[in-house]
């Protein structure tokens, strides 16, 4: 019996190693296919929501006082005289060639506008996420290690407060303190990356305002994931090996607790990218969110449609990266 079983295992493991690179590739490929599908469905969804505007898009964009001729001209320019599926296909086709269309208000290519705005939104989101992680990791680990003690209770109370904080209000308080009272940092605006120093300085307060509530959430997730893994049998095994409580936490619990933390970080990144709209408003930053926001007030549906799709695509891409990170952390997922 044992002989037969181990012989089987040999063939299995040898074969496994030979194909392990292939397995990983196949995993990536499968994820990519589902990524493409998600993008397709998302684009269809955005397209049909925009189609739902009362009246038709052209008269919506021009407002009620528009001349019928102007509306008709725009209708033709937008291709509204063509059937719906054809228009969707044309939009997606153009997207695939990198053509996001042209802004109705500014008469400039949307791709360039988005690229320009990304130069603010992306660094801001990255700064905020890094900051959030830098705060959350030590705090979460500290709380988990002192579970049930005073230090843990203090951290948990503090994070509750952090979660309850509306970030735009927190941002206002930051401005009040650091810009108005202390005059350390600018209260708003963005000088552009030609002045890297000033540009970075103008992103500090927005990043802090975005990061703190996210850090609170992340710290709590990390703490509970750590506590959960510390109840596992393999932690007991590690202690029986002679590892100290600290070594057990660092070498065994942390890596296992990383999986739920990764999920949350992925979701947070997309939130930071899109949710920065509000913070961009507080600080008058020319980010992607503000672009969408302005386009809405200008009724520029073409910009709204394309910019929203870019945001959603970014979120889906981040999810894809998180999936890959899972597989890197957890060997059990690779051959699924």
């Amino acid at each position, binding site marked *: 019996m044992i002989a037969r079983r181990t012989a089987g295992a040999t063939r299995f493991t040898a074969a496994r190693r030979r194909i392990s690179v292939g397995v990983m590739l196949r995993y990536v490929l499968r994820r990519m296919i589902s990524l493409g599908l*998600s993008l397709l469905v*998302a684009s269809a969804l955005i397209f049909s929501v925009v189609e*739902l*505007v009362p009246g038709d898009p052209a008269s919506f964009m021009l407002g009620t006082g528009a001349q019928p001729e102007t509306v008709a001209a725009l209708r033709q320019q937008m291709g509204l005289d063509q059937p719906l599926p054809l228009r969707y296909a044309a939009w997606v086709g153009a997207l695939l060639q990198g053509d996001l269309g042209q802004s109705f208000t500014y008469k400039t290519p949307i791709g360039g506008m988005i690229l320009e705005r990304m130069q603010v939104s992306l660094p801001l989101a990255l700064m905020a996420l890094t900051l959030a992680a830098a705060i959350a990791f030590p705090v979460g680990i500290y709380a988990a290690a002192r579970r049930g003690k005073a230090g843990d209770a203090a951290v948990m109370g503090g994070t509750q*407060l952090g979660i*309850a904080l509306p970030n735009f209000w927190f941002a206002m308080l930051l401005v*009040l303190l650091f810009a108005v009272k202390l005059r350390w940092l600018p209260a708003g605006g963005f000088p552009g990356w030609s002045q890297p120093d000033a540009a970075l300085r103008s992103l500090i307060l927005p990043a802090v305002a975005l990061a703190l509530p996210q850090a609170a959430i992340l710290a709590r997730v990390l703490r509970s994931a750590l506590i959960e893994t510390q109840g596992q049998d393999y932690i007991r095994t590690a202690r029986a090996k002679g590892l100290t409580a600290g070594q057990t936490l660092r070498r065994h619990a942390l890596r296992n607790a990383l999986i739920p933390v990764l999920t949350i970080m992925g979701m947070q990144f*997309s939130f930071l990218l899109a949710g920065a709209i509000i913070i961009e408003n507080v600080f008058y930053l020319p980010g992607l969110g503000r672009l969408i926001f302005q386009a809405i007030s200008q009724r520029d549906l073409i910009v709204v449609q394309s910019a929203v799709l870019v945001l*959603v695509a970014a979120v889906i891409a981040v999810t894809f990266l998180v999936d890959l990170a899972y597989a890197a952390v957890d060997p059990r997922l690779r051959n699924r």
Partner: protein
Amino acid sequence: MILGAALAGLALIAAVLSFAWTPHDITQLAIADRLQPPSAAHPFGTDHFGRDILSMVMLGARVSIAVALVAVGIGAGVGVPLGLLAAAHRGGWLDDLVMRGNDLIFAFPSLVIAILITAVFGPSALNAIIAIGIFNIPVFARVTRGGALPIWTLDYIRAAEVSGKGTALISLQHILPNIANLLIVQGTIQFSLGILAEAALSYVGLGAQPPTPSWGRMLAEAQTMVTLAPHVAIIPGLCIVLTVLGLNLLGDGLRDALDPRLKVAR
């Protein structure tokens, strides 16, 4: 938990009370009294139109709570049945469909949904509710499915199947009561997130429209005069923080109180 319930209760009482009585009438503008610091007549001071901030805050609580509550209702009302359905057909195409649909909604950041909806249908409290509610659906569906899956593997479900009960009856009689705790806790979390989201939407002008007072809009209006009269910005913000904090503490407390495993350990 008691502190949490007290804070959340306070907000609720303020909201209910505002239907019958507020200290001052906020439709009466008194420019002469504008931007006054807190005093005996106006415990929270007055705003740039001389309106009593305490009265504004009470009326604002009404909007916040109503929006968040209805949004939780939408999320739970649609998400819970979907989650139960997915768990009952775990591994099947229906499960796949529900979960993929969830992922898709998750790919739209909640604010983007809200913005898209308001872009198309115009800003209003109702559209804010719909936007927040839609985002709540996958949250509830996920929690429901996640809670239901382990229960489906238990032997008492097999016993119910042997007793000839179908998936719908089992979901209703066995699964739902056993994940009720989970859903209540998630409900309080989504409720507090709803209040935050409503405030954010109103702040950028996509939520409740004037003249309805709302915490988020009070903050937006306060932004320009925050240096002149900080209390105008600080008080509505504190209201949000305390209400959300109260709800979160309540949720945590409920989780501990309702978890039978923790009860045994204590």
